[in-house]
């Protein structure tokens, strides 16, 4: 990742062959990992992983490096931005690849999962929870992630996730007149 963040974007976007080759060598492991991870739940083969990764590089250099020129190093790390671009390209690749008559067994459960809309739920009034509190509760209970994963996502320590979660639950219980379990 260090090599990647040392990329000279000015030279790279002029179409310099040597700069492009160095960039590809540095970026390939990250793009490969992101595409592989994104497509893993769709059970696509190795060729699809390679094609989707190639799509990422095509996007980056297409139309005289137009996409690469939109990247601003002052705002985000090159690796993180590339990971976001790679994930989006992998999802697009899957959508193109998906056949209209895909057998039901091949569709991941997460895609088929449907929330039961018949259960009447009490609405959480706007402003009761902060955006961060809502996000933490959704990650913990809707996505069923553990505290460490949420901490990694938000770049905060696990204890902060726990205390934010605790405060959010106290607010909810106070508002809806619930006793703690």
């Amino acid at each position, binding site marked *: 990742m260090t090599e990647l963040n040392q990329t000279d974007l000015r030279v790279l976007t002029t*179409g310099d062959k040597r700069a492009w080759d160095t960039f590809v060598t540095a970026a390939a492991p990250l793009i490969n990992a992101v595409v592989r991870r994104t497509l893993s739940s769709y059970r696509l083969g190795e060729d699809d992983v390679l094609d989707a990764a*190639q799509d990422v590089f095509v996007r980056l250099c297409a139309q005289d490096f137009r996409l690469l020129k939109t990247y601003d190093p002052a705002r*985000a790390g090159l690796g993180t931005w590339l990971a976001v671009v790679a994930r989006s390209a992998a999802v697009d690749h899957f959508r193109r690849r998906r056949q209209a008559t895909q057998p039901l067994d091949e569709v991941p459960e997460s895609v088929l999962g449907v929330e039961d809309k018949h259960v009447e739920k009490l*609405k959480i009034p706007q402003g009761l929870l902060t955006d961060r509190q809502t996000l933490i509760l959704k990650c913990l209970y809707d996505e069923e992630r553990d505290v460490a994963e949420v901490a990694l996502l938000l770049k905060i320590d696990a204890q902060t996730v726990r205390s934010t*979660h605790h405060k959010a639950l106290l607010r*909810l219980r106070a508002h*809806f007149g619930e006793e703690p379990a």
Partner: protein
Amino acid sequence: MSTKRTPRTDKELWRSLAPDGDTAPAAVSDLDFAAWLDGRLPEAAAAPVEAAVAADPGLRRAGLELADVLGKPLPAAPDRLAVRAQALVGFEAERQIPGGSGFLGRLFSSGTRYALQRAAMAGMAIVIAGSGFVVGGGLGESFAQERYGTTVGATSTTTTSNEFSEFFASDGI
């Protein structure tokens, strides 16, 4: 019999509630999302991104997956992947050369790779063409054909037909 309700767990309570979902999540650009993942956004700028991530399950999963991938050592990519990607940007010599698109322009343009090889190839082509011209009789033959075209043609045709007749006659055909 007690009428007291059994307290619900945190998860049960959350699942019985519906976060305010009337407002559609705001669109988040790739660069904003990356900046948020890097933890580079100030609190005020991070709040709308967090609201969008909280409201959009796809964005939430993307964030969790990317944070996981970025937080781990990366395995090496297959060689094929890098080779194919490197081929997307061509070599300098394959690109359009500025300042002359014709053969001579390409051959003699400065700062071009392989100029020496090209010049050598062109020189060899000239030598081969010249040799062929000389071996074929050069200009003298052309002038002779122009001046005595009909006679020379008739003679050579006759000679050729006689040679063929003798050849077949010797084989008894």
